[in-house]
Every structure is written in C-alpha cells, then in structure tokens.
C-alpha cells in the first residue's frame, strides 16, 4: 500500500494532494461500520428468531413475498446500473454514464414507492408498533413486526440517503466535476449503493421468505 505513484502531488505550492486509493480505503472502512451497524440488528433478530421460531414463521405469513421480490429485483438492477455508469464514465462515455446514473436514482425512487405502499398497507391492516391489533398477538409476532419496521425502516433511510447522494453525484458528472480520469467519488457512491443492495439481500429472506 505504499505505492507512491498513486499519490499525485500537484506542482502548485498549496500541495493539494490526491490519493484515490486512500479515498477508497476510507470508503471501505465506512462501509464496514455500516455493516456493524446493521450487524447489531441482525444479532437482535437472531436472538429473537431463536427464541420464537414458530411465531416468526406465523408473522412472516403477513408479509407479501411478491412486493419483497419486486423490490429485490429493483435494487439488484439498480446495482447493475450504477456499476455500468461507473464503467461508462471510465470509458469516457459521459452521456451513457448520466443515463445509467439517472436510471439508478429512478429505480431507488421506485423502491421507495413500493415500500410506501407496503407499509401503508400494513398500517391500514392495523399492524404498527403499539397498535391494538399487534398487541393482541403473541410476543414473538410483536417482536417480528417490531424488527421488521426497524430494520426495513433503517434500510429505507439508507435508500433515501443514497438517492440524495447519487443525485449530487449526478450533478457533478453533468457539471464535469467528476470526469473519466477522476471517478473516485462516483465509485465510492457506487460502493455505498452496493452496500444498500447487499443489506437488502439479507433482509429479504429473513423477513419475506420464512413463511
């Protein structure tokens, strides 16, 4: 990691230094903390799933596998488009990169729309934390839905952050702040987006496929 060729120090006297490998390393470390953040929740999930296996199974019946699957496909596709956007820019195809990035953002918004309908469906069915309907159920089911709202909620928050982040990056690509020879910001945002995708890949079976 001491390959100093990648550290380009500008000739200007104010030593603006650019270190793409360092920037990526920082991003990976940040993603690592994100995984640990969700790791705490996965741990809680594991404890309660172990404690109430049957009730988790019953509660899982109430979730729509169809919506979950559609959202999984949407997120996986958006991961592909963001990767394509990076490659396109590196191959100096700026317009394709912009299209792919816009597509990623659109898919992310689509995911959120789905999520909105899914959650409001749950709310109208009387399933939300503290609702009478939920409190009349078994403890295991209460916990299942508690975790469902917390974990998919925190994930949805990350999707929202991703939408904002990718939109800013899109603006930078359009304004030539990010160019083919300096893609590290785009790549890091792509990494973040893959993480959002990756976490969903674990949430999906844990909630939607345990029926």
């Amino acid at each position, binding site marked *: *990691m001491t390959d100093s060729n990648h550290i380009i120090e500008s000739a200007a006297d104010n030593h603006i230094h650019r270190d793409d490998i360092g920037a990526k390393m*920082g991003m990976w470390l940040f993603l690592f903390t994100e995984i640990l*953040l969700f790791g*705490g929740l996965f741990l809680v999930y594991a404890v309660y799933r172990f404690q109430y296996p049957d009730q988790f199974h019953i509660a899982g019946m109430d979730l729509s596998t169809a919506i979950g699957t559609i959202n999984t496909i949407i997120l996986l596709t958006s991961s592909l488009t963001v990767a394509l956007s990076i490659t396109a820019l590196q191959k100096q195809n700026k317009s394709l990169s912009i299209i792919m990035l816009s597509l990623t953002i659109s898919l992310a918004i689509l995911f959120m729309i789905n999520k909105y309908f899914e959650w409001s469906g749950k709310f109208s069915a009387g399933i939300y934390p503290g609702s009478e309907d939920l409190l009349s159920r078994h403890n295991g089911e*209460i*916990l299942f839905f*508690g*975790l469902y709202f*917390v974990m998919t909620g925190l994930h949805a928050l990350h999707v929202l952050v991703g939408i904002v982040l990718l939109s800013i990056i899109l603006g930078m690509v359009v304004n030539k702040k990010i160019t083919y020879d300096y893609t590290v910001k785009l790549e890091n945002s792509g990494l973040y987006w893959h993480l959002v995708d990756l976490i969903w890949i674990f949430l999906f079976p844990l909630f939607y496929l345990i029926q």
Partner: protein
Amino acid sequence: MTNSSAVLNQKSFYEEGNTKAKSGLAAWIFSTDHKRIGLMYLSAIAIFFSVAAIIGIFMRLELISTGKDLMDAQTYNTLFTLHGVIMIFLFIIPGIPAVFGNFFLPLQLGARDVSFPRLNLFSFWIYITGAILVLLSLVLPGGPIDTGWTFYIPYSVRSGTNISLAIFAAFVLGFSSILTGINFITTVHRLRAPGMSWFKMPLFVWATYATAWIQIIATPVIAITIVLVIIERLFGVGIFDPSLGGDPILYQHLFWIYSHPAVYIMILPAMGVVSEIIPTFARRTIFGYKAIAISSLAIAFVGYLVWAHHMFTSGMSDTARWIFSLLTFLVALPSGVKVFNWVATMYKGSIDPKPPFLWVMNFIFLFSIGGLTGLVLGSLVTDVHLHDTYFVVAHFHYVMFGGTGTIFFAALYYWFPKIFGKMYNIKTANIGVALFFVAFNLLYFPKFILGYMGMPRRYYDFLPEFESLQFVSTVGSWLMLITLILIIWNLMHGILRGRKSESNPWGGVTLEWHTSSPPPLENFKVIPEVKHEPYDFSQLEDMKND
C-alpha cells in the same frame, strides 16, 4: 529536516493558516489544518473536563456526612449521570486521540496533514453538535437525565427526563468518533514518510492506529443500540421490553459490546504516549518495541471479547460467566507486557526526571493499582461481592483518571513546547505532580475500602460506619481541585507568559521533533526520509547539526 536558518524565516501554523480568513475565529473554525483542529478539540475538552470535575466536587460535598447535606437524591442522580456522560463521551473517549492524535499523528508520520482534512474538520463540528445536544438536554423541559451514563433498560425507557435527546447526543458523538477513526487508519496506511515501514512507526502511532480500529469496530454497535432505545421510547416496539417479549439483558450485552472496547479507546492512546515519553527521558531506545506495538493490537482484539464481565450479576449462564472471566484475565497479559517493557526501558537508562516523566511515574503506579484491582473484579467469586460497590468506582477512576487522565496531563506537559513553542514553570509542574499523587490517592483509595465494606455506588446517602472514610475522600477532592487549578494555571501561564522554548527541549527523536516548534502550516519544509529506528538516540547529534 529543516536547517536552522530556514527555521528562523519560517512562519508557524499560528501565523499562517489555510482559510480565507487570515485571523480571528473564522481562521480557526473553518481551518482544516490538523494542528488547529487538535487545539480546538483541546479547548473544548478542557471546558468539559472542568465542568465535569466541578460536578464531581459537588457530589463529594454531598457525601461529606450522612443524610442530606447539599442536595436531594434526585439531584444527586442527575449529577452522577452528568459527571459520567460528560467525562466519558466528551472528555476521555475523544481526549487523547482527538487532541494529540490529531496534532501529532501526521507529524510523527512525516505527513503534511491527515488523509481527509475536510472530514477531520467535519468530525470536530459533529463533536461540537453532540456537545450542544448534551447541554440542551440539561435545560429543556423534562429535566437532565438521571439514569447513570450506562442508560440501562428499563429505567431509561421509563424515566421522564430528556433521555432521547441525551442519548441521541451520544449517537452524534459516536459518529464523530467513527469518522476520526476512519481518517486515522487511512492516514497511517497512506501517508507514512518515505522509509517509514510499519515497524519504524513511533509507538504513539501504533496505539492510535489500534484505537482507531476499535473506534470503527465498536462504535456502530452502540449507535444502533441507542437508536433502538430511542425507538423504544417513541414507539414502544418492545425489543427490550419483557412485557412484549423483549429482553432487557440484551440491551446490556449490546451496550457493553461497545462500552467495554471503549475503555480501550480511552487507555490505548495513553499507553502510546507513555511509550513516547519513557525513551525520551531515559535516553534509551524502547525495550521490546515490537512487543509493545503488537500488544496494542492484541488489546484491541481481545478487548472486544470481554464485554460480559460487566454483567456477572445480571443473570447469565455459568458457562458464559466462566468464559468471559477467563478472557478478562487474558486481556491483562498485553497490558502487563507493556508495563514490563516500560520499566525495562528505564533500566540502565540515563534518566532525566522532568515533569512529563514524573507524570508517567504517577501513571505506572496508579494504573498498576487500577489494573490489578481490575483482576479482582474480573474474577467471578470476588466480583459477585464487589459488583456495583465503590470498589468498582475506585477501580474505574484509578484506570481512567489515574491512567488516561494522568497521561493527558503528561502529554500536555511533554508536547507543550512543541505545540506552543514556549515553556511552563518546571518547578511548579513538579509540585503539581506530587500534589496530584497525594490528592488522587486521598480521594480514591478510601473508595476501595468502602466498596469492600459494602458501600454501593450511586447512593447519595450512606450508613454511619462509612462516614470517616467518606470524609477523607471528600477532603481529597478539595486537594484535587487545588491541584488541578495549579496544573492548569501553570499551563495557561506558560502559554501567555512563558519563556520561549528551544525547538527540542527534551531531546526527542521522533519526527515531530525534526521540525520547528511550533510547526509550520504544512509541518515539514521537506518531507523527512526515515533512516533510523524510531527511538534511535544516536541521531540526536545529527539533528543538532542540521
């Protein structure tokens, strides 16, 4: 390595900034210079430390005799919570890494700044935001929090005080800690000067590096735990609520998965500072360099696996308790490795007992007591009796205040001429160290005996038989107050009126001493090339000739 004529012409980082504003507040609060950020942390931390110390003095006043003396029980609950929250989240966790890590990590690596200077400034502002949130939680309706700094469930969900805001502040502060950790790790990997291989890094860098890893491994766990408590308070999801099937003990696990490694966030950088000071004042290369470097990583690693020793009486299986007790004993090994190597370094050294060195002597004595009583608490049999007594309080203060707090002062006294280019009064400093030693033991040692006799922690009143020892401890707190005023006054006086210090008054050889004092904006005129081992004092002659 700068030559002396260049030093004279060079502007220090005080005179030359990297902001648009050339002077005034804006030149500091928008500066991405790691040295200015370190000093801003220092001023913020000094304020919080003073506030929390004064709270501690008031708590001791209440405990001067039995019954209600000064305040009612609820006020006392609030005060010990605030004392803990401010000392831990605002002083001792950020303490050495944020102040001295920021200032000296790039200098010791031979770098111009950290890897992400703007992120560094951002971390500082997040820290300030968190601190403001803590202060807001005191004054907003609902009242200051009264749960203790551990925020244990179920009380933290039921208490009507401003828990949500206060723990959200802890979340924000954690975010600052994570970003600083990421920054430091990347800096160590990417910005070492040419020739500085991993095993040529100064040991303070090693310690800060290990700390940074704990910061990013452990902090996200407390972050999510805090989020869960807030959600619990707002929506009643039931994750920690037994009436809804949740498990309050799970909260304790999640809390200590962070908060035990956090005590290594507090102590590891201090150990790094000790490894800097001892060779400099013993004029001898450090004994067991690799052992000390690797023991930092070992503490970071094993320290991650011992959290449940805080919960021996919370209700766990005997197998779990046995395993966690064993692991706790294991973590004492790398700490022992360090202490023996430090002492061995002094053997046959040419010791120059200047104030920083005396602070370190203080540290070794107090920290050894703190460490050994930690083993008493780590053993199952004794812990069941001593859990939640003053013994724990005494142990914790010996390790944290006697350990990290002492070294915070040691670091200030060691790097003072480097940071400010001036010198404090050596004689007053020596008196300060001696007084500190007396005051500290007067204040905290009685707590060991009180705890052994059965005095529980966090009580605002006590039985008559504890009165005389409680009184001794309170007298100790007065002496401590006087000592702290003396120590800090000496430093302030040094900054304002101190005589000009030479560039390298102690004869240190790590890279920060290869540049002028105070250092210029970008630290080095030419990035030095590292040819020596970090504590090779044979280069001292060359440095003088340079």
